[in-house]
């Protein structure tokens, strides 16, 4: 007993003081710590965005509800969308990319470690500035506080006439800062993939996660630039008397739409491609088979990246484009289903005939396959211009993109959390709590977003503050809100599991999943230098080669 106490005392005395630990984290340029900072920051904003979603849904739970005022409701859906896309989903994706890409390609760090730290802090301060608007957004006119122009902030709503005060300025400046941070991270990821691969790792032997994050980085660089340019133009309009988006002075409101959506639709793939990356790593390991059709998966990813840059105006069918324009964007949007379908078939073919282990990460990925397929199908429906004319701006569209972002992307992110948590923390998560999280969240997701399609088809417009009873929307809105509560409880279970497991979870060891990629060859959590010596690889599954020298992969690749 006394010996045990002595050991504990020694361990405690070896711990650095809190202030030193904080200093280490704040000044770090280590890609793993920055990755974890990104993830923690994103989880914080995920909680904020989630609370805003709950407020929106409580307001809509029944007709004529007055849980919040119309002004607060507008702020809630604006902040929910902005937060979830720019300050939760993107930082989550960047966090995992930061943590995993160097480890998986056998590098000691990213290509530009200091730029990496700068990019993270710029993104983080952008988020803080956005939320500071709740306190400091009144400006000179006392006109509202947080932004309330919707997450895509169409002109002329953003002009000073319709948005007096500074609430919209906070939105512009926060996104400007985080956009520059995102571009810094994207440049870093691309440079790391191109220049920092370990000996033997040709592009054809690179893990799919690295390929997909490389594609994502290219998309960020291409798509963030127009948004940043548009934000600057909007600032010029608001501060310097510019007329870029001022229709009455010869500007164009549609110009903003083009600028926003040429960012906005590739952004969906900025989030989805890393989600595909997680699925492409998790599904093979838990199916105990290599990924089916690696080269085709890479080609399909590049095709998705390429096509996604040419589909933006399907968000604008109701604007009244020419029939040639409509036809082009209908066809290009439908074309993107082909490489996406190839991916789904390849994941299924990977599972097919495998020795499938339904651990929590795999459960999330299997659900992702079904849900992303449905999201894709409703996407094809909305890609048909005549269908879109009927349902654009309705809750059907809201249901569709939440199916993509929650049912597709967030599910694989949860899978990634469970899969790499042992590597990041050195501890195993609680499997039972993981499964409780999965089933609760899946039930909540389907209650909310399956039934959200119905009021959309029945004509319920998105962003509506309240509604008249007797239109057939009442019961659906009640069910949708109940589903959100399921998701909230499930998320609390998830966060509780992470905390509990970090403190008291079973020690994970370096390779709890019998994995095949390089991150599983080093300690959990990995040392700051990642690898004692740079690894040398001969195939896409270097650890398989090491574990099975009698039947290495490089014989077949």
């Amino acid at each position, binding site marked *: 007993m006394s010996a045990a106490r002595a050991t504990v005392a020694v361990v405690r005395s070896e711990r650095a003081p809190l202030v030193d630990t904080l200093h280490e984290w*704040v*000044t*770090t*340029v*280590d890609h793993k710590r920055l990755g974890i900072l990104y993830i923690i920051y994103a989880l914080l904003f995920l909680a904020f965005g989630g609370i805003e979603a709950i407020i929106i849904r409580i307001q809509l739970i029944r007709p004529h509800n007055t849980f919040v005022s119309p002004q607060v409701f507008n702020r809630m859906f604006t902040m929910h969308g902005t937060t979830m896309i720019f300050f939760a989903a993107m930082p989550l994706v960047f966090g995992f990319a930061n943590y995993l890409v160097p480890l998986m390609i056998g590098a*000691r*760090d990213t290509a530009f*470690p*200091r*730029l990496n*730290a*700068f990019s993270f*802090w710029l993104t*983080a*301060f*952008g988020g*803080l*500035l956005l939320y*500071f608007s709740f306190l*400091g*957004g009144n*400006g000179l006119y006392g006109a509202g506080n947080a932004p309330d122009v919707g997450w895509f902030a169409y002109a002329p709503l953003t002009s000073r006439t319709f948005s007096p005060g500074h609430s919209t*300025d*906070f939105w512009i*400046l926060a996104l*400007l*800062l985080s956009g520059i941070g995102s571009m810094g991270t994207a440049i870093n990821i691309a440079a790391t993939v191109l220049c920092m691969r370990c000996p033997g790792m*040709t592009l*054809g032997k690179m893990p799919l996660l690295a390929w997909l994050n490389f594609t994502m980085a290219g998309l960020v660089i291409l798509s963030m630039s127009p948004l940043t340019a548009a934000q600057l133009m909007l600032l010029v309009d608001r501060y310097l008397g510019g007329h870029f988006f001022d229709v009455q002075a010869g500007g164009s409101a549609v110009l903003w739409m083009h600028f926003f959506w040429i960012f906005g639709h590739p952004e969906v793939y900025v989030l989805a491609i890393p989600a595909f990356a997680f699925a492409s790593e998790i599904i093979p390991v838990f199916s*105990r088979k290599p990924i089916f059709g690696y*080269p*085709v998966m890479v*080609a399909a990813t590049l095709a998705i990246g390429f096509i996604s840059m040419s589909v933006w105006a399907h968000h604008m069918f109701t604007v009244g484009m020419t029939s040639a324009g409509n036809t082009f964007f209908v066809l290009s949007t439908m074309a993107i289903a082909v490489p996406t379908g190839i991916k789904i078939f390849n994941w299924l073919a990977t599972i097919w005939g495998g020795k499938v282990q339904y651990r929590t990460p795999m459960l999330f990925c299997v659900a992702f396959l079904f849900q992303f397929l449905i999201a894709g199908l409703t996407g094809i429906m909305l890609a048909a211009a005549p269908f879109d004319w009927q349902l654009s701006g309705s809750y059907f569209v809201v249901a569709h993109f939440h199916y993509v972002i929650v049912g597709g992307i967030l599910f694989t992110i949860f899978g990634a959390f469970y899969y790499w948590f042992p590597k990041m923390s050195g501890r195993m998560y609680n499997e039972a709590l993981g499964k409780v999280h999965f089933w609760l969240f899946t039930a909540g997701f389907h209650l909310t977003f399956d039934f959200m399609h119905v009021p959309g088809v029945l004509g319920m417009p998105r962003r509506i503050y309240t509604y008249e009873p007797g239109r057939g929307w009442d019961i659906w809105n009640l069910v949708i809100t109940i589903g959100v509560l399921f998701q909230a409880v499930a998320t609390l279970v998830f966060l509780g599991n992470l905390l509990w497991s970090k403190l008291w979870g079973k020690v994970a*060891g*370096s*390779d709890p999943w*019998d994995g095949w990629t*390089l991150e599983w*060859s*080093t*300690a959990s959590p990995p*040392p*700051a*230098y990642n*690898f*004692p*010596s*740079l*690894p*040398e690889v001969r195939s896409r599954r*270097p*650890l398989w080669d*090491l*574990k*099975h*020298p009698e039947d290495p992969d*490089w*014989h*077949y*690749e």
Partner: protein
Amino acid sequence: MNIGAFRSDPAMVTQTVEVPASTAWPIVLAFGIMLVVAGLVTSESVSALGGLLAVTGAVGWFRDVFPRERHELLTVSPEVPAVTTGRTTIDRTALAPDRHRIWLPVEIYPISAGLRGGLAGSVAMAMLAIIYGLVSQRSIWYPINLLAATFFPTAGPQAAGDLTRFYPSMFFLAAALHLSTSILVGLLYGAMLPMLPRRPILLGGLVAPIVWSGVVYSILGIVSPVLDSHIDWIWFVISQIGFGVVAGIIVSRRERIPTWQRLPFALRAGLEQSGMRDESHHGGEQ
């Protein structure tokens, strides 16, 4: 099963590793820039403070990397995790060498074989159809008019009695339909024949036409009730089989050409990859 650590060369493992040194300048610069823009919506003094911090951060960062990037040395832990696997091994029963789990079209017929097969099949089918017209209606134009009327009911006569006469428009329509469809089916035949195991002529020439006829029989009543009432199904099946057998014989007589199916995708796509050719040689035998 403990296998070993991931070290290609133990001599390469050093006692210390050089990594970029921690630094506060990136956060100082980022905070400064944030204050500069926040000043636009708060107060000029905030922007001024931000500008000061940003300049300080930028200068500090510059001094961090010039003239030489600042690094710190980390001691390498002597404990390197062992690479292990929990995979259980099992004995595998070898397949007989002449048994294949899949049939890859490693050799195919050239496109011209499909074209010729389709054209030859179309002639055989047309002859059988004309014989049917002579026997049943005493007119060679009956099957031709019937075919054209299926797709273009407004181009010619509607009444059954008129179907025995010659109509130039119906003739050209039917000829175009028959030839184009025959060529397309011939191309499909040429592509699929190498994938059909064992008796390809039997499968492609007999089984496929019967299955196809069954499909048409089941849906034609819905698609075109008029045509359905005029078709003699025995002759229909015979003419389909005639097409299949003749096309199959013509296609199968041509010499096959090898495909790149055995080769890795990267090589087929023209991408360079070191060691690909040697590895493909091993892989191709699997």
